[in-house]
């Protein structure tokens, strides 16, 4: 096994420690930036409460029935929004020169990206658990097994990981962090709303239903509904995995190419 010349430790172990350190750094930022914590803690809960109590009666008759349908939808929508942090943080590092500082250090070349994505998955995990907890307080009950809950979390994180590659590309291309947010949310709003996350598809025009059925947000919401309550799991879950693979296959190489290009421009 090759040995890292700086730490005298196996190269892979050194890279793992560097990645963990960089993930720790991203999470540490939250401690000094309470607004960010509020952003991804209060916001999902606010969405949950607003949608539940404003639309619940109209869509499902009672808020209790609607909660069982929409909680998975809120989890999925919020997951897509949280991925914007990957692009935002990466772009901040690139525009402020911190990325150059990292590149001038003897660390694994892919560790800054890996650290950021892992930190993002921790944030994602926190949001899912928070939404499940608030959902429980509002009366949501998991009627399957703990293994199925873990499966639901794993599936959401898998898709989040794929989405991260898309956001890396946005982070590399955007001029500044504000543009990442602008572009990210502008793209995500239609994708998350043209889905079955909040409303059953039957009320939509036929042509829109076609879009909704193939939208990975719908598939993921369905799979999570099945894993926490009742409904099909296998087909939507396979659809989510196929989407995850496809997004990663396209955007991981594209993002890395764009990043190398940006860095070689000086």
């Amino acid at each position: 096994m090759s040995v890292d010349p700086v730490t005298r430790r196996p190269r892979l172990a050194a890279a793992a420690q560097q990645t963990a350190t960089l993930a720790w750094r991203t999470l540490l930022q939250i401690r000094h930036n309470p607004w960010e914590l509020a952003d991804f803690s209060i916001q999902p809960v606010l969405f949950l409460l607003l949608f539940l109590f404003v639309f619940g009666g109209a869509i499902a008759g009672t808020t209790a029935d609607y909660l069982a349908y929409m909680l998975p939808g809120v989890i999925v929508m919020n997951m897509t929004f949280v991925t914007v942090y990957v692009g935002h943080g990466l772009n901040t590092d690139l525009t402020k020169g911190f990325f150059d500082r990292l590149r001038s250090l003897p660390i694994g070349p892919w560790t800054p990206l890996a650290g950021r994505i892992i930190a993002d998955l921790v944030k994602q995990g926190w949001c899912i658990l928070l939404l499940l907890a608030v959902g429980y307080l509002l009366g949501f009950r998991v009627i399957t097994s703990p293994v199925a809950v873990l499966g639901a979390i794993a599936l959401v994180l898998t898709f989040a990981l794929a989405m991260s590659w898309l956001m890396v590309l946005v982070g590399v291309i955007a001029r500044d962090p504000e543009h990442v947010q602008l572009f990210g949310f502008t793209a995500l709003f239609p994708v998350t709303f043209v889905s079955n996350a909040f409303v059953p598809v039957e009320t939509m025009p036929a042509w829109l239903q076609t879009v909704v059925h193939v939208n990975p947000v719908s598939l993921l919401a369905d799979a999570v509904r099945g894993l926490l309550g009742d409904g099909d799991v296998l087909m939507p879950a396979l659809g989510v995995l196929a989407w995850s693979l496809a997004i990663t296959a396209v955007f991981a190489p594209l993002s890395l190419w764009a990043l190398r290009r940006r860095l070689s421009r000086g």
Partner: protein
Amino acid sequence: MTPAIQARGLVKNFGATRALDGVDLTAPPGTVLGVLGPNGAGKTTAVRILTTLLAPDAGEARVDGFDVVGQAAEVRRRIGLTGQYAAVDDKLTGRENLILIGRLLGLSRTASRQRAGELLGQFALTEAAHRAAQTYSGGMRRRLDLAASLVGRPAILFLDEPTTGLDPRARLQLWALIRQLVAEGTTVLLTTQYLDEADQLADDLAVIDAGQVIATGTPAALKARVGDRALVVRVRNPADIDRLRPIVAELVGAEPQADGERLTAPVADPGVMVELVRRLDAAAIPVTDLALRQPSLDDVFLALTGRHAVPDDEPPA
């Protein structure tokens, strides 16, 4: 002795722009090499190549004997980089920034914390250590940035315009810190737009313009070419410039440069001022300004190239 920094024939193009056009640089160990030049001359591009951030299109560079392209990891183990824009994490505290770098360099938790404490003390940041870097003043941020590049005790330090945008007091503080590092044996490559900064800190200078080194030598040798001081005369009536020019030329023994109603010339002996005032009086040339000042980068460029350091359509930095 192997030079700490050696670059030969570095070429770098960005699209149609040639940022570096055959740059040679050499710094023996333990010395300070000043790279002097205006905005856009290629200083930052040269630093980015030497610190492995950018690959040259042609030419080669070695840092501590290691090739910056083929042995980038070895180079990174030996260098520290402080850029023009303080590259610290704004959202972390000063202490956390330094601990982060220590951990990335493979220091243990305890060793990282200890090294961070040392540097915070050395850079007068102990009191602000627990505050997020975004609350720091420009001078404090630059000190933190410099401290971050020193966590691994690099043998060779690259400082890209370390004092640009700092107030005079913060600049003096930073100069003192750099001198201390040099006294401890660190080799430094420093880029700057300020002749006095290069004069204060550098053992050798390379003047760079449009991607090419146009002069090298010690600061003393360069100043001898430019003059210790620059004489500036501003006439009330621009038509008097032609009458003034031969008077100044004869007194200072060099051809002065005219720019509107202003005439500048290098001066070795400040005593010429007295004689100049007499002759201005005798020739009845009214002046609005008559001064001796430190030569600027612009004076260096005028002396070396016969033109201004900054294009005319841009305000001088």
